């Protein structure tokens, strides 16, 4: 909510009370700023003192924050990150498409889809409930044991498959929540116009459902990006695996920190971009326009 300034209404002379209130609010803002600064300073100094004062700080600094080592391993870790990014994009696309499909099947009432409905429910229940790490191990070591010749056995492929299996279930649940958040009166309105069930789902329910869950969808995609690092346990040389390889021999763990920083460099802009997008989208019906949605004294 925008604060009103006196300049906006040239023909308005603020009353003495209004001026007094404005002066008071200015003083309050100054005071808030000072408090925030002081508190930040105290916290930062305390943390720095505690960390650098720790008995093992010198050794830890050399083992984790060695600038020269960081520079040396950067190309290898960055190349590994490229694999993470590819896995992320593929898994996101597949997960979004299949997840949406599962959610639609699960919420549909068409008799022909009954087996699909059961299958979707079982699938989501299973893959939402089993830890991703376990899915990775089972897929990574179980599928190759079947010796299917057409099935690629690279760690990257099997890792991506495991991530897709798990995240598709998460995303399907998000979409389902979105579908169920659309008020039944919207369906009644569409049907009363003569639209079929399918047309109503596609043109009226889904567009609103997806808008309603943009934020949780984006959250899931960000955590997918970071969970793509788990494929390293199947031997795929992603950022984490590349960092691990670089640490063997000299017990210098700086490469892990490099990998962590690289992941952050991707995920932070991503979350910010999503926030900005949702804000700009100004999704109609969002809380920003509700009266009382501003700062409350």
């Amino acid at each position, binding site marked *: 909510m925008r604060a009103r300034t006196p300049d906006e209404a040239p023909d308005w002379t603020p009353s003495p009370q209004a001026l007094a209130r404005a002066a008071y609010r200015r003083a309050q803002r100054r005071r808030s700023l000072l408090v925030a600064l002081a508190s930040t300073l105290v916290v930062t100094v305390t943390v720095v003192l505690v960390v650098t004062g720790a008995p093992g700080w010198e050794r830890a600094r050399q083992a984790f924050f060695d600038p020269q080592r960081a520079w040396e391993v950067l190309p290898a870790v960055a190349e590994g990150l490229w694999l993470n990014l590819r896995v992320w994009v593929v898994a996101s696309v597949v997960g979004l498409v299949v997840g949406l499909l599962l959610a639609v099947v699960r919420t549909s009432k068409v008799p022909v889809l009954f087996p699909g409905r059961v299958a979707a429910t079982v699938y989501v229940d299973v893959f939402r409930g089993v830890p991703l790490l376990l899915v990775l191990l089972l897929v990574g070591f179980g599928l190759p044991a079947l010796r299917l010749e057409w099935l690629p056995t690279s760690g990257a492929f099997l890792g991506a498959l495991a991530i897709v299996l798990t995240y598709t279930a998460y995303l399907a649940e998000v979409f389902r929540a979105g579908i169920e958040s659309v008020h039944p*009166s*919207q369906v*009644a*309105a*569409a*049907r*009363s*116009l*003569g*639209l*079929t069930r399918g*047309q109503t789902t596609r*043109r*009226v329910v889904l*567009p*609103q459902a997806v*808008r309603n869950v943009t934020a949780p969808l984006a959250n899931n995609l960000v955590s997918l990006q970071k969970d793509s690092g788990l494929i390293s346990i199947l031997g795929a040389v992603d950022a984490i695996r590349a960092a691990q390889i670089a640490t063997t021999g000299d017990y210098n763990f700086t490469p892990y920190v490099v990998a962590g920083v690289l992941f952050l460099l991707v995920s932070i802009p991503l979350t910010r971009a999503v926030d900005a997008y949702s804000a700009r989208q100004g999704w*109609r*019906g969002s809380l920003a*326009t509700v009266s009382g949605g501003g700062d409350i004294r």
Partner: protein
Amino acid sequence: MTHLLELRAVRKTYGQGAARRVVLDDLDLTVDEHRCVVLVGSSGSGKSTLLRVVNLLEEIDDGEIFLDGQDVADPRLDANRVRARMGLVFQSFNLFPHMRVLDNVTLAQRLVHRRPRAEAEERAEAMLRRVGLGHKVSAYPDQLSGGEQQRAAIARALVSSPELLLLDEVTSALDPELVGEVLDLLADLRTEGMTMIVATHEMGFAREVADEVCFLHAGAVHERGTPEQVLGDPQRERTREFLRRLR
């Protein structure tokens, strides 16, 4: 002569077992072409359910619904095609919030009536001008006032040239000063000969536009007649009591 709409012994219940409630109980009703039938009655008397049943949004437990002599309660009939012949306007407008007003009005034309986009938009714009929203075609529903939203919803229902227009307490969610613009529009439609079933609490409006007033009580038409008869000189005690409570 067959009636445009005829309901015979329609029964509708909600819920199961002990929680079962009879909402429409052996209800009979006829509506002839170019007539305006106004439904009045206290909340829970079945007005909204009656409209939803006619629009086939609810399945009836028993009875028959004839539209132009054809029993549309028959489940073998394609309900979508029956619904496409009527328009229903809701108390809470139920415009599609993710579409511009224009797209709200072209949606059914394009998907149900298979009109090309250009023709659908032309008709939609003409209809929106007709309800006084020619300047709002590109607005989204949440940028309109309640009265404008309801007029847009009426345009959405009218643009498919329905044979029958069902109006479910269309002014109940409006601020008092916006009620007039919607009622004026309905009065115009009435003059043009649109066949309408109107559920309303606006007795003044009922008096003005109704060819026939039906007082609903306990899921059945308790008393029916001209507005002068039912609202001016009610014969049955329940009707009198209802009208007394309104004053």
